[in-house]
């Protein structure tokens, strides 16, 4: 078996040719493809942990009152669920995995601009993740503040906040360095002839995302340091007893954390924009609009953070400014949705798993986006703020949106990464089970949210229970779909049928090189003559 595997990998990036063997050959590799894969494996592992914690929360919520944990433990659960999912899964997400694996190949480069910095980013990611997990087990107990670490509770609670915020700081630094690397890569390493407007749209998305990673993350970095300074030195910035304003913490926190959601979704939209033309065998409708809408989302996205704070006591002028800008930022996203649909029109559609996931994405993201308008409007926000309506909204966008796009990306680039194909039927069934489970899990939460079910609450009025039961069942259905999907992918990575270089008849550069790719991607760097998505 081993000899067969060696043969299969010979001449590709999966062959160990250096000084190290086995796992060390990976952990010391500066090859963007290996780094991308390592991120994929780490993030998948953290995702599974996060899902398990989510399921524990769902079990607790299946009935009012205590079901399996005490209230304090429940606070710890939703905090760590958020920390893992946000900082260790969806923010690194598609950038660290496929930004690394696919971006350089798609622009005709041999690697990123700073390969050693890339590996360093990965080490920081592992170290920060380690600290975040450690904060669960240290002496003072897991943090119970929610992943948002709001002052004044985060500065006064006895739990391991310092370790968790330090972890988030380190993870943020990893994100900054990755963003820096990708910006320089796109500016300096595009193949000859590939102008910005001849670049495919996934690189455009990664580029826009990289700017957000670079410029927004430092703000939360300094904010977390301020929380630590408050806990250690009572510096007073957010403590009303010393003259500070807790709302200022919220401003600082959301100045990063709102752009952060665009870090999550822009690469996802980029993936969808690659998949749809390929499986419709038609060029993208409105290439420039999609490229520039990514930049517009990144730019305007910096200015809307206050919509997380409508009920915090901000001035009236602030309220309407943030609401107005929030409605503005929805427009470029909508433009993308229309362009995707227009691309499909009269296309030659091939309903393979990547495309099916992409369709689910569009459906779920649209629901998430529309409910975002309910939250973006001042009057309706007051009614649903801090209810499970918000929880349903962001899960539709992040999980239904970015999550399904991530599954789509894995199913799209899998044959390129491993030179093997997965079981199409299992993938299709898994995706449908997940789609059904997802909607059962989250849709009821919109309803009870409007009816008054608060978020982050461990107990609730009996009238919410039927919906909570449906939601919990949905969670387990979704989990079943995930299990099938992971089983299919893991099995196929080792034993799947050999896949050709271009199984989907794609036109971008990654499909013009062998599967799996050689170490340096290209025999000869191509010279780009025309626009991308040139389907005959």
């Amino acid at each position, binding site marked *: 078996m081993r000899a067969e595997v060696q043969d299969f990998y010979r001449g590709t990036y999966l062959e160990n040719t250096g000084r190290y063997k086995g796992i060390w050959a990976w952990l010391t590799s500066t090859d963007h493809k290996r780094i991308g894969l390592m991120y994929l494996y780490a993030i998948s592992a953290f995702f599974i942990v996060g899902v398990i914690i989510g399921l524990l929360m769902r079990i607790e919520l299946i009935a009012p009152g205590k079901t399996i944990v005490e209230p304090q433990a429940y606070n710890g659960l939703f905090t760590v669920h958020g920390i893992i999912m946000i900082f260790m899964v969806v923010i690194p997400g598609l950038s660290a995995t496929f930004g690394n694996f696919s971006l350089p190949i798609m622009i005709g480069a041999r690697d990123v601009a700073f390969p050693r910095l890339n590996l360093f980013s990965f080490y920081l990611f592992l170290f920060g993740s380690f600290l975040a997990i450690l904060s669960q087990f240290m002496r003072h107990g897991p943090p119970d503040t929610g992943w948002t670490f709001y002052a004044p509770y985060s500065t006064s609670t006895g739990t391991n906040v310092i370790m968790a915020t330090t972890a988030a700081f380190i993870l943020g630094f990893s994100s900054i360095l990755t963003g*820096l690397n990708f910006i320089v890569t796109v500016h300096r390493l595009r193949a000859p002839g590939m102008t910005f407007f001849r670049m495919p749209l996934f690189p455009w998305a990664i580029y826009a995302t990289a700017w957000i990673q670079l410029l927004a993350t430092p703000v939360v970095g*300094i904010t977390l340091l301020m929380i630590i300074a408050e806990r250690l030195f009572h510096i*007073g910035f957010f403590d009303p007893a010393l003259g500070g304003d807790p709302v200022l913490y919220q401003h600082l926190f959301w100045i990063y954390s709102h752009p952060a959601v665009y870090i999550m979704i822009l690469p996802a939209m980029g993936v969808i924009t690659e998949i749809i033309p390929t499986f419709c065998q038609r060029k993208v409708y409105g290439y420039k609009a999609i490229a520039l809408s990514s930049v517009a989302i990144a730019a305007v996205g910096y200015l809307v953070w206050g919509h997380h704070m409508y009920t915090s006591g901000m001035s009236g002028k602030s309220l309407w400014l943030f609401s107005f800008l929030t409605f503005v930022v929805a427009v470029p996203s909508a433009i993308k949705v229309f362009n995707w649909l227009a691309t499909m029109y009269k296309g030659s559609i091939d309903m393979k798993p990547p495309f099916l996931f992409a369709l689910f994405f569009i459906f779920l993201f649209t629901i998430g986006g529309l409910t975002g308008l309910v939250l973006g409007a001042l009057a309706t926000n007051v009614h649903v703020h801090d209810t499970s309506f918000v929880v349903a909204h962001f899960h539709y966008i992040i999980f239904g949106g970015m999550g399904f796009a991530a599954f789509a990306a894995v199913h799209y680039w899998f044959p390129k990464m491993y030179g093997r194909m997965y079981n199409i039927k299992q993938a299709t069934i898994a995706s449908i089970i997940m789609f059904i489970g997802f909607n059962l899990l989250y849709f009821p939460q919109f309803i009870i949210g409007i009816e008054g079910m608060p978020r982050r609450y461990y107990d609730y009025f009996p009238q919410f229970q039927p919906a909570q039961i449906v939601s919990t069942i949905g969670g387990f259905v979704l989990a079943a779909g995930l299990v099938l999907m992971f089983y299919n992918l893991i099995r196929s990575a080792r034993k799947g049928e050999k896949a050709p270089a271009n199984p989907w008849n794609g036109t971008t550069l990654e499909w013009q090189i062998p599967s799996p790719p050689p170490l*340096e991607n290209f025999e000869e760097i191509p010279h780009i003559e025309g626009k991308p998505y040139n389907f005959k």
Partner: protein
Amino acid sequence: MEHQAKAHLLEHRDDEAAKLGMWLFIFTEILLFGGLFLVYAVYRAMYHTQFHEASLELNVVFGAVNTIVLLVSSMAVAMALTALQENKVKLSRQLIWLTVLCALIFMVNKYFEWGAKFEHDIYPGSELLRKLEHGHILYYGLYFAMTGLHALHVTVGMIILIVVERRIKAGKVHAEKFVFLENAALYWHLVDLIWIFLFPLLYLIT
């Protein structure tokens, strides 16, 4: 084969990329300090009179001397780059040492300044501070946070400059390959730039 490939990848030298990378890193530092400047801006607007009162405790002479020292150090490292580009290696190294010396003077000044504050029982969380007005407490909190973070960057900058000087001595950084010095100098100028704003905002509040 990987050895050859790796060597090939590392051979790929792009000074423009390195410089662009450094400018991008500087942007992150601007946003990092920017968070503290935002906190300062908000609380100064809220507690204007108390900020003024508290700032009287600071010694403008110390602040001015530190400003001058940093400005001189910035010129020195810029001149060091010019010297290296003109292949005047010894002059370049001397100018870098001058920059480091200025940084050291800055840190010594800072040590005495902070020391004086501590002696008067002024530090975040102290007994004295807790009895003062809200505006005073926040002012001192910002003073220590901002000058502290800045001093940390001065220290890191000093280390980077010394590393560059050693590399010039070893011949690894020279007239044909000076982007490392360029980038170190950019970092140093950033440190100066931040102080240019800190000085009037902390020491010269009327």
